[in-house]
C-alpha cells in the first residue's frame, strides 16, 4: 500500500508543492484539500490520505505551514492549514525550479520525437 502511493507521487516534493499551491489562496482542512486537488486536476490526481497527512506534518515541522483550530463546513472541529511566509517563498522557489525542470524535460522529449 505504501509503495503504491509512493509511485503515484510524480517526483519527490510534488505532493508538497500541490499542497502549498492549493493552500496559498485559501486555508483549508484536510478533507477539503483532498477534494480541491481532485477537482482542480479534473480527477487526474487522487491524493492518498496515507501520503497527505504525513506530508502535512512534514510541512508543519519545517514551518512552511501552520495550523489552527477551526470548524469544517458541517461545523465539526478540525484543523485548518495555512501557508506561512517561509512557505510562500519556498513555494515560489520550488515552482520556478519545477518550471525549469519541466521545460528541460519538454525539450528533451521534443528532440526525442524528432
Amino acid at each position: 500500500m505504501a509503495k503504491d502511493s509512493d509511485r503515484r507521487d510524480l517526483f519527490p516534493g510534488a505532493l508538497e508543492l500541490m499542497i502549498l499551491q492549493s493552500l496559498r489562496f485559501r486555508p483549508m482542512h484536510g478533507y477539503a484539500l483532498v477534494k480541491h486537488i481532485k477537482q482542480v486536476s479534473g480527477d487526474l490526481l487522487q491524493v492518498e490520505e496515507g501520503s497527505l497527512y504525513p506530508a502535512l506534518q512534514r510541512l508543519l515541522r519545517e514551518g512552511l505551514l501552520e495550523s489552527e483550530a477551526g470548524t469544517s463546513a458541517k461545523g465539526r472541529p478540525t484543523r485548518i492549514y495555512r501557508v506561512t511566509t517561509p512557505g510562500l517563498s519556498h513555494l515560489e522557489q520550488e515552482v520556478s525550479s519545477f518550471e525549469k525542470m519541466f521545460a528541460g524535460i519538454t525539450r528533451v522529449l521534443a528532440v526525442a520525437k524528432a
Partner: protein
Amino acid sequence: MSFFSKLFRRRRYDDLNVSIREHIAERADELMADGMPRAEAEQTARREFGNVTLIEQKSREAWQWPKAESVGADIRFALRQLIKSPGFTVTAVVTLSLGIAVNATMFSMVSAFLLPHLPGRDPQSMVVVSSVDPDRQFQPDANPVSAPNYFAWGKQTRVFSAMAAADEYRTGSLSGKGQQPEAIPYAAVSPNYLSVFGVSPARGRDFLVGEDQPGRDHVVILSHGLWERRFGSDPSVVGRVVRLNREDYVVAGVMPADFRLLGFTPQLWTPLTLTAADATADARKNRFLDLFARLAPGVTLQQVRAHMNLLAQQAQQDFPAIEGHWGASVRMLPDFLQYNFGIRTALAVMMTVVGFVLLIACANVAGLLLTRAVGRQKELAIRMSLGATRVRVVRQLLTEGVVIALLGGGVGLFLAYMGIRVVQAGLSFNDAIADVKISLDSNVLIFAAVVSLVSAILSSVAPALKASRTEINTDLKSEGRGASSGRAHNRMRVFLVGGEIALALFLLIGSCLLIRGVYLLDHQKLGFNHDHLLTAGLVLDQARYADSPKQIQFVRGLVEQTRQIPGVEQTAVASDLPASGLSSVVFHIKGQPEARANEQKTTADAVVTPEYFQVAGVPLLHGRGFTERDDSAAPRVVLVNQEFVHKYFQDRDPLGKQVQLDTPGSPAAWSEIVGVVSDVKSYSEDPRIEPEVYEAYLQRPVASISLMLRSTVEPKSLAASLRQLIARIDPELPLLRVMSMDDVIEVQRNGNPLFTKLLGAFAVLALILSAIGIYGLIAYSVGQRTHEIGIRLALGAKASDISRMILREGLKVAGIGSAIGFALALPLPKLFESLFQGLILSAPGVYPLVVVVMLIVAFCATFGPAQRATHVDPTSALRNE
C-alpha cells in the same frame, strides 16, 4: 519551528486525531448524501481512508527524532517484560549489580590514587630525578639524591628548565605558648620549589631567592591542613612567629588545600640550606634529596634519561668508592608519585579480580537470558511471522539486556557508594593513604556506565543473536515433542557455565595463594619478643642536643628515669625499632681484599643502648653484649647477627675481627666484633633476614631515636606516664608514635589486612556466582528434560538413577571447568612472585584443595535440581504436553 513547540508534540498528535476524525466523518456524510445508509457509509469512509493507526504513526514520524521514540517503545516494552517476570529480573539485576559494584568500588581507588589531580602548571612536563641502587630489592630506582649530585645535575639547563630539591621526610617539633609540643613531618625545599611546580601560596608569599642562606632561612610556609588544625584557619597568621625545633620562624605563607603530592605529606615547608660541607665528596654518601625538575621545552623523557645516565657514569668514574654502582633514573612526576606510593600492583591485581567477577556475573546473566529466550521462542516466532525483521528482534532483545545492565548499574552504584565507605575506613593505615579521599567521582560514574554497557553487550549479544535465528515454521509447529529437547540450546549454556567455573577456580586459587602468603607473613617468627613493649620516637633537635655528649647524656637520663615508671621492667633506646626496616651501609672487613665498586659489602645497621637485647628479647649467642663501659673513650665494638656471620664469614667465628662502616656523617673507624646475636626479621611484613651490625649508642649517638619500654602491664597503659616524664625532662620535645610494639607491627602490615579481606570477599563472591550459574544450568536442564525423565521413570529407572544422572551432568561441567581453571592457575605463583616481593607463594597443596571445594559447591548446587528430578511424576510428565 521553535524548540518549545517540539516539547508539546503530544498536542500535535491530538490535532492529527481531530483532523482525521473529521476527514472520515465528512467523507461518510458525503456518501450518505449519495444515498448510502449511515452504517455502510461510515464503514466505507473508514476503509477508503486506510489504516488510521498506521497513517497516524507515519505522520508522527515526521516529528520524531530519528528512531528515538521507537527505541523508547522498545525500552517500555522491555520494562513491561521484565516486570512480568520478577524472579528473572531480580536475579539478573542483583547478579550484575554485584559485579558492577565491586568494579566501581575498586575503580574509585584507581581514580583516587592513579588519576590524581596534580597541582601546578602542566604537571606533564615535570620529572623526578632519583638515584638507582641496584642492590635494593624494593624500588631500587627511586632513591633520593645526594647534595653534590643535586648541584651538578641542577645545572643541566639543556634538559631541565628548572630544578628544585626537597628533603621530604624531616620530623620537627612544633611548639608554642600553652600548646603541647607536636612532632610534625615537614620538608626542607630549595626556595624555587613552589615556582618549579607553578604553584603559589594561597596566603602570604613564596620563599625568596636567598632564603636558603643561613641566617635568612627561618621562614616557613604552612600546609592548609596544619593552618586549619593548629592555627584555627587564622587569616592573620602570615608574619607571625612560630617555634619549630626550638627556634623562631616567621610564617611566610599558607599553601592552598589542593597542593598534595600523593605520598609526600609534609605539614610545612622550610628553605633547604646547603653549606660547603654538602659539596664535599663525603656528602655524596648522604642521599636525602628528591629532585623535581621541569623539562626544557622540546626535550623528551628519553633524551633526559640518556643525559642523566651519562652524568651518573661520570660520577661513578670520578668517585668510584662512593658512587660505585649508583645510577640515575628519571620518571615523569605522576609516574614517580604512583610508583613511589607502591599501590599499583595491588590495584592492578584487584582490578583483574573484579574484572573476572564481572565476567562471571555476565556469564550468569547471559545464561539467564538464554533460558528466557528459549522460553520466548514462540513469541519471537510469532513476531517474526508478523513481519518483524531479524534486526528488529535482536534490537528488542538487546534493549532488554541494556535495561537489565542499566538497572544493575544503578543498584551497583548504590552498593559501590557503600563499598567505598567500607574501603575508605580500611584505608587509614598511614597518613598518606588516609589523606587520599575516595569518592564516587565523575571518573567512577563514567567507568560504571561503561562497565554496565559492556556487560549488557557481553551478556545479551549471544542470546539475542541465537534467539533471533528462530526458525518460524519449526518453532510454531513444534510443541516441544522431542523427548530430550534443548540439547543444542544447552550447548552454549554449558560453555558459559564451564567458563564461569574455570574463572572462579582461577580466582579462588590466586586468592588463596595470596591470602596464604600474607597469613604466613603475619604469623612469622620475628626473632624478638614483641608483646609487652611500649615504643615511642624522639628526635633530638640541633638546637638543644647539638653534640654527641648532650645526646648521650639525654639518652642515659631517659633510660634511667623511664625505668622508674611503675610497671616498667627495663628500657632501651635504639636508632630504629626491631623489624621495622634499617638503613643499609657499606662496610669493610679488615684483612679481606677490598671488593670492586659494584660488589661492595652492605649490611643493615642499628645503634642501640646496652639494654636493647634484653628489652627486645634477642638472645646473645656468642661473645658478649654491650656494657656501659663501651663508651666514646673505649675502643669501638660492634655486635653482628647470624646472617652476617653466615654471609660474610661463611659461618666461621667472627669474634675479634675488625669491621669499618661507611656511615654518612661520622668519621671512619675500625670496630671489633665482640658478640653474635640471633637473627631478627628485617621487616615484620617480609620474610627477609639481612646481615645486621649493632653499634653502641654511647660510641655513636644519633639524633633520631626510638624508645622501648619492657613492661609487666598492658604497655599502652604506660603511655600517659611516659608523656608526663618527657614533658618534665624537656617540655619542648615532642613524643612521636607512642604505641605498643604489637601496634607498630599491625601498622606495618599496611594495606595487607584490607587487601586480603577484599581479595577473600571477591573470591567468595566469584564462588557464589558460579554456584548460582551451575544451579541455574542444571535446574533449567531438569525442567527441559522432564519429559525424558518421565519416560525413563515409566520404563523403570529408579529415582537414584535419575538423580545420579543429573548430578553427573552437573559435575561433568564443573569438572571440565575446574580442569581448565586449574591449568590456567598453574603459572600464578611465578606471576605473583614477580609482583609481590617477600611473599611465600609456592603452595601446591592449595590447588587440589580449591578444586575439591569447587566440586563440593558444584555438587551442592546440583543436588537440589537432581532431587527435584526424582520427584517427576511419569504420568503427568508424559501427559503434560
